[in-house]
């Protein structure tokens, strides 16, 4: 199948790739660029495990075709920690025990980061609804919500 040249940024690095039109952004990130932290849980945009941030918005990367991200800035779970220091959302997930098997965790962290960046003042109820696109089967969500609220508080205080 024919491939098309596409240029975009992933975690600050310029990517100039030849991409088949049928490949999703998720497939490009995982199979072409080799960033496997973003997970494939359903391939239908329902579980949120493949969530990445595109130009500030949390997006399920299995629902985006790779050829459509030209010129965009993408952040994946691998791009969150800076200079070896974890992002407050990552640290909060550790401190509260907000993950178990960890498969949904990259998606949850990316969704949470985008939500907090957009508005850290959400109530617990608002975060519960806003995170409704991410499925976790292990935790029952109690400790995830604790992590997100703690991270939002921390980011609010330090900004």
């Amino acid at each position, binding site marked *: *199948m024919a491939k098309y040249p596409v240029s975009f940024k992933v975690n600050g690095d310029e990517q100039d790739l030849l991409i088949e039109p049928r490949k999703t952004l998720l497939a490009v990130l995982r199979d072409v660029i080799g960033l496997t932290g973003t997970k494939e849980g359903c391939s239908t945009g*329902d579980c949120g495990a493949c969530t990445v941030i595109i130009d500030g918005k949390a997006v399920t990367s299995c629902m985006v075709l790779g050829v459509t991200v030209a010129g965009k800035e993408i952040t994946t779970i691998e791009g969150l*920690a800076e200079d070896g220091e974890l992002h407050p959302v990552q640290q909060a997930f*550790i401190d*509260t025990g907000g993950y*178990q*098997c960890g498969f949904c965790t990259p998606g949850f962290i990316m969704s949470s980061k985008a939500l907090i960046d957009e508005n850290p003042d959400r109530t617990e109820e608002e975060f*519960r609804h806003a995170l409704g*696109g991410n499925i976790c089967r292990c935790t029952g969500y109690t400790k*995830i919500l604790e992590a997100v609220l703690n991270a939002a508080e921390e980011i609010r205080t330090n900004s």
Partner: protein
Amino acid sequence: MSEYTVVGQKLPRVDAVEKVTGAAQYGADVHPAGMLYGKIVRSKHAHANIISIDTSEAEKLPGVRAIITQDDVPSGRRVFATDKVLYLGEPLAAVAATDPDIAAEAAELINIEYEVLPVVQDVMEAIKPSAPHIQGDETKDGPKRRDISAKIKELAADQDNDHAAEIQKLEAELNNYDDEIYHNISAESHTEAGDVEKGFAESDIVVEDTYVIPRVHQTYMEPHVSVASADSSGKITVWASTQGPFAIRSGIAGTLGIPLTQINVIGTTMGGGFGGRFGVIITHVPAVLLSQKAGRPVRVQMTREEEFLDGRPAPGCVIKLKTGATKDGQILARQALAFWDSGSVSGASIGSTIRVRGVYKIPNIKIDAYGVHTNKSGTAAYRAPGAPQAIFAGEAQLDDIAEQIGMDPVKFRLMNMREEGDEVPAGGSEPKVGYKETLEAVADAAGWWDREADDNQGWGVAVGDWTNGCGPGGVYVSVHEDGSARIFHGSMDITGTDTAITQIIAEILTVPYDSVTIRRGDTDSAPYSTGSGGSVVTFTMGNTAKLAAEDAHKRILELAAERLNTNEDNLELKDGAIHVITADPPKSISLGELAAYSLSTTGGPIVGKGSFARQSSTPALAAQIAKVEVDPETGRTRILKLVASQDVGFAINPMAVEGQIEGGTVQGYAWAMMEEMQYNDNGNVNPGFVDYRVPTSADLPTVESVIVEVPAPNGPYGAKGVGEPPITPTLATMSNAVKDAIGVRISELPIKPEKVVDALKNNGHGA
């Protein structure tokens, strides 16, 4: 104040950083050079004869490197269907190609001709003589026919007397129960204690109901995946997402007739298991066969849709349950007749029907359980396999009795709960378990005793019991010159068990938690380890780790005595150093210095070994209370409060234990309220997250967890397995809460809005 410094503490997990940075390597993240992508070709019918399989078009597609069918299985063991398919999605062939899209395209090009056969999906239909025969036609007698046949056999065996007339009468009676000749039976299980007929006769109240529990999927977030690489010497390496690498090794060896030593299984980080990740032929064997044929590594990764079609979910079942009690609240008898939907395989947790006995003194009990074939995929374990289903029936019926005799449901349970030394119905003597403590703890925490409910609100309570399994394991621990310790073992981390093992070893070696690291070996290198299921890991590997650390401790004292010219009795290991207790001024040597010294001794480095297989386990109890609000117009139930307590023996890491309680309770909630794999004559009709809804954070309140600690005599520090118990009571908790809210028992799960509306209408409450 705890006597311990590391165990019993809420410490961050050992795999924390890799899990939150995306560095953890799951099965689909493995990508050896030259890897091909596999795709399984699946049946498009739920029941059909296979006329032909034509792979010629697929072979022509550029990029296709291998196509396999059952003809490529040298051992002849069934990996792919040959003459007949039994369910939608059953594997028929597999393809390996240079690109996943090419593999999928090739799979579509394989032309399969079918002769479609009649289908049966409902267990109560499948047992009838009119049902299609799915795998031969095994018939079994139901309870009454069994009783009559047993009597006939007994009379016939009595040579001294003539019972011909009596036998003839009984044989005639047998004909009255033709409807008890069950068809399509895959397995049966029968248990009896006391005399239920007598028990029911002595009861003031007898309640009977039929409980229907749906088939649900474990829905681990990582779909099944394996990467196999067969090299030219015949050596096979499999990167497997599995709960039990050693079981997968022997499974592959057995299925393909390959020596065990030729297979190395590397367990990858597991994206959830819940009992569903032990299967050998689901992806592992096809990956090996494809790799052998293509001569390159092959990854076989299931999609979510394939998970629903060909995973091994939890069996649904129909349980007819009858309970007799006196009007002052004593339970006298309980009888169950259960039909478990085992799909295309046998088994299906039927032995768990015994769990309808609960944790109560019931002098008379009778259980008859059957596994029934239907045109669905096979089933497997799901978190306390079979217990949520059986306990739902038992605990829902208990509430209905409590209501009839006008007794508070918590008090009714407390009054009937077994105590230490009581007889377990058909099961020996009860050890010390915190049954009452756990129920009282949840009642107190939830505010049960002064509970309030507005219109359409209700409270429900239920308890569920489970006992962790046990199995073999081995652990090594080495102490290094810098005072750190390294653990080596082969058991899969099932959400926190590596952390528990690490905490135990740090505790015994008296070193900081973060100076102990843990490394998992593959099946070529690590000592054998039992699978990570059945809540076994903390119990088994915890005990094993303890033995390894104690062994190292022994060597440490031996070395220190030599080094410090004293007797071992004068030494104490404390805060990472060995102290001469009798010395004044104080005299000590650090573990690091001792480890350095050990390298030049005759005895050598400090290596502790632990090996363990079996000790009796102690039951655990989970008790839960929910408060709900039901909208009588829409039938929608909103959960307002969910409190869960559990007797965990001892919480080695309370944060991880809370996580298990919260997660298990929510899985139980989902089974009660939302989840159901639905089937028609075409097979499963909801193979995705849009139609098979699992709960999200938006559906739930905070789960409040309460840890109760009544130590298990053989558990490490008294710990019991904690993973499975929390799912066991929730189905009943929810049904009981909804009944309290609307006054009607919904005994067919899940409690979807339409069922609530129907139930209200049928009882004259409806709009």
